[in-house]
Every structure is written in structure tokens, then in C-alpha cells.
């Protein structure tokens, strides 16, 4: 789950970066940026954090 979170975060970065080379429309690029940031935040704050919370010291 942690690895999935990290890889999804990286994917969230690649969405707008690769999107730069696929379209020259400012609106499309902005949408891809928002999508990519959303994916990265979900990966870090939900997937990765949840994986760490399962083994948190206060659960032991």
C-alpha cells in the first residue's frame, strides 16, 4: 500500500508534465495540472497515510 501510494504520487506528477508535450491549450494544461495535483494529494494523504496509520504507535 505504501509503495502504491508513492507510485501514484509520482504518476500525479507525470500527468501535467507529459501533458505539456501533448497539448498546447492553456485550459487543457491547467486541467491536467489540477488533476495531477489531486492524484498526488490523494496518494499521499489517503493511501500512504492510511498505510502508516495501521501500524501507528497509538494502535498498539
Amino acid at each position: 500500500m505504501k509503495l502504491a501510494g508513492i507510485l501514484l504520487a509520482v504518476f500525479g506528477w507525470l500527468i501535467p508534465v507529459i501533458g505539456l508535450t501533448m497539448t498546447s491549450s492553456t485550459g487543457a494544461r491547467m486541467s491536467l495540472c489540477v488533476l495531477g495535483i489531486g492524484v498526488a494529494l490523494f496518494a499521499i494523504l489517503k493511501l500512504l497515510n492510511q498505510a502508516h496509520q495501521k501500524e501507528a504507535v497509538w494502535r498498539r
Partner: protein
Amino acid sequence: MTRCTWLKPCLWAAIVALLVCNLPAVAQSAAPAPAAQAAPAPPAVDAPLAVSGPSSDDLTAGDPSGTKTGTVNDITRSDPSKGLTLTDVVNQIGQNRIGINFTWTLVCGFLVMFMQAGFAIVETGLCRAKSANHTMMMNFMVYGFGLFAYWVCGFAIQMGSAAGTSMLGGAAPLNSEYAIHLFGHDWGLFGMKGFFLSGSTYDVGVMVLFLFQMVFMDTALTIVTGAVAERWKYIAFCVSSLVLGGITYPLFAHWAWGGGWLAKLGTNFGLGAGYADFAGSGVVHSVGAVTALAGALIIGPRIGKYNRDGSSNAIPGHDMVIVLTGCFILAFGWFGFNPGSTLGASGALRISTVAVDTMLAGCTGSFGAVLFMWIKYGKPDASMSGNGLLAGLVAITAPSGYVNSVAACIIGLIAGFLVCVSVEFIDRVLKIDDPVGAISVHGAGGLWGVISVGLFADGTNTVKGLFYGDPGQLVAQLIGVATLLGFVFPFTYGVNWLIDVFIGQRVSAADELEGLDIPEMGALCYPEFVLKLDTTHAGTTQATEIKSGLRVAQETA
């Protein structure tokens, strides 16, 4: 005589009169034009100039009014036997310009270095007294570890191709970069000149750049120590700081400030002026914050912070006096952080605007936090007020060179609200323990600062944001945000995960409960004070269970 007979003589007289009157003009126009005066020959640049300053007798008499000090006598002669030449004068002008810029940049760098003291006492004051020595020592030694790693390789990675900094004389030796060619564009990845500041980078301009950039790097490093205070092993802190200062921070900083691919988004993809970050909301504060987040996730919360049901317990700091004093020190140092990022005062008079924007954003940031806490909880909280001031300063760091004072106030006010919301979200929803609120102040504030460039930049300093007609700039800023979240965070998480595997990041439960001063540092910060026991139910219960577990493990071993 009839009328016609006197008319003819009159006409002839008139004709003769006209001819006589215009003779001089005709003579003048007919006369050959005098030869055009030859343009004066330009002065020979190496010929001695016929100027003199006060005599030695004048100087010996003293100069109470200052009119005899700082004259032509003080210009350096390249050849004293020849005397003062035009070349000497012009060279002196260039030296003066660069000298002013060197002095400005170095003094601002000294101010930023002093911010280390501010961060140290803010973090220590927000932690418990039993770990105060450890917290102070992390902030004290992060200066040395960061500086060393940056000297070894960090500066080279970040600024190895930064030649062209005209404010500091050009820094021409910094002229090597590794780039890859993809999709028809060059993507600069890291610099390759300046390792150990040796070879041709033993250069006065490069030294100024090194000092100024180093203190910025150290700010990023010190952010991490606050988020994982009271449970971070000192040895793990040392290794993590070396890597952050030597590799992680310089990598992103090169992309943004060293001529890398983020800075070239404008020229390569038509996105405004490329990723713009005047003084480092993204480069410094957000990099520090995402590393702090990675550390906080890997290391976990303090014992006693959360109950079994997931509810959070407040663990107050031990000294609000030094917390708010530290915030003032940081606000003072920020006058070096933002205005100093012009890298000069000669030809960069915008430093005044940058300084005022910085002040205003810090002010409204504290207003936002005070208002939020006062309205929600009925009292203005001191620690959140300090965090609000810092959040405003963090947020204005990126746009300070590009916005007007109204925008600065708005940016700071929003940052003040944002930090309060973020602290509660991270603590209660995400259940991530951050004793000083570093992730919120520098992460939420930093990312908001990066985005605000794309909104509020008014075009008076090359960058124009969405509200002034350039949506492409906002796209460039958002790509920077995506890079921070989707590259820098995974990279730094991986580094710290490896440190956890090979060294271990977290101290033992017994050490944590005792306080890190004795187990890690060997001495209490306040040896004459009787420290309060941890009386939170969760802390006591968890401590008992953990100690029991330890005792059982030892008995069965």
C-alpha cells in the same frame, strides 16, 4: 504729367530698392559655405585626464564636512605613472556597482543565517522541556551539516550552470549542466560545476552566490526538525540533513533557480516566465515541508499524542516567550530572505517594494490566525498567532518580487486562515503529529505562495499572473506544485525510508518517555528545574503498556 507717367518711375524705384535690400541675402546665399567644423576627436581612453582632487595639505587639515573625502583621488589608477585615465574611471563605476551588490547580498545572507536562531527557539519553545536540549541541538547542528553537504556537492548540483547572474559580476565559471533532450526540448536536470568550490569556481562572485544560497538551503533543513521533534534519533537527523542539503534540496532548486527545466517552462512551452519563485515559497519552504511530512509519516506520532479511539491530545510547548521572540527574529531575518533575493541593490531598487510586501503579508498573516482562533475558540491563541505570522511570511516569499502591497495583504491574510485550518486537518483528520505546525506553516503556506504568483503577479517585474492576463503563468506554478508533491515528496520519502531501514529513525519508547535530553544528548537543558511528569491518560496508559511490553520482551529474551 498724367497718372501713368509718374507710375513708371515709382515702379523702377521700388524694383531698385528691393534689389538693394536683398543684396546681402543674395550675397550670403551665394557666398560659399564655410567648411563644416570637424567633430571633436573622442578622448583617448588611456590618456591621462586633467583632473585633480584635494591636495595633501587640504587632507591633512581634516574634513569635517565630508567634501574632500571620496574624490577623484580615491579612484584606483591601473598605472600610477600614467595617472588617471578614462578606463580607470569606467572600471571604478563597474567595481562600485558590483561592490554595492556584493555587500547587499552578503548582509542579507547574514540576516537569513540569523533566522536559524529564530527557528531554534520557536521549535524548542513549542516542545516539552524534557527534550529541549535535543531540539536545540538539532537546530544548532543543522547549520553545520547542511553547510558541509552543500559545499561538497549541493551548490554544484543547484547552481553549477547559473552563469549569467549579472548582479554579481556574471558568475561565469558556473557553466556546466546535465540535461536530457526529450520531446524536442532540453530538460536541465542538475548542475556539474562548483564541487568543493574548487577550480575555476574559486571566484569572488561565486562565493557570494554560495553564501546566499546556502543559508536558504539551511532554512529548508531546519523545517524538518520541528515536525519530528521529541522522537527523532540524532544520528538519523544527521544523515537525513546531509542528504537533504547535498541532494534533495539542490535538485529542485536547480530546476527552479539554476536554469533547469522548471525555469525554462516559459521559453520551452510558452508558460509565462516559467516557474517563478522569487525567494523560495516552493524551493525552500515547500521542500522542507514535504520532507517534514515524509519524516512525520515514517517516524509516527509521539507517545500520548493520540488515544486508542484516534482522538488527539494537546501537548503544549514549555515556553511561549521564546516562541514569540523567535517569530520576531524570523520576521527580522525575512528582510534578508526576500529583499536579498534581488542579489543586489544597484539596479534593483525594487528591494523597497519587496521589503514592504514582506512586512505586510506577515502582519495580515497574524491577523488571519488571530481572527480565526478568536472567533472559533473565543481567545487569540499565542502559538497560532506566531504560526500565522510565519505562514504569511512563507506565503509572500514567492510572490514578493512580483506583487503590489494590496495583493501582499491578501496573500498573507489567506495564509493566516489557511495555517489554522491546516493544523487542525493534519492533527485531527490525518492524525499526523507535528509539534510545531511546520507542515502547515511551510507546506500549506508555501504551496499557497507558489500558486499566488500565478494569480497576483502584476507584470511590473517581468511576471504576470492570471488576474493580469496571463493564465500560462498559473499553469507553470501548478506544475511546480505537482513536482513538489509528485517528485520531491516521493524522493525524500524514499531517502528517509532507507535511513529508517539501515539506521532507524525513531528513538525507543523508553527514551522518548524519559525525554531525549539524557538518552540522546547526555544532559538536561534545564538541570535545575523539576520537570513535569506526562499526566495525559493516553500517555500514561501507553507508557505503562509499552514498558510492560519491554519488560516481557526482556524476560523472554
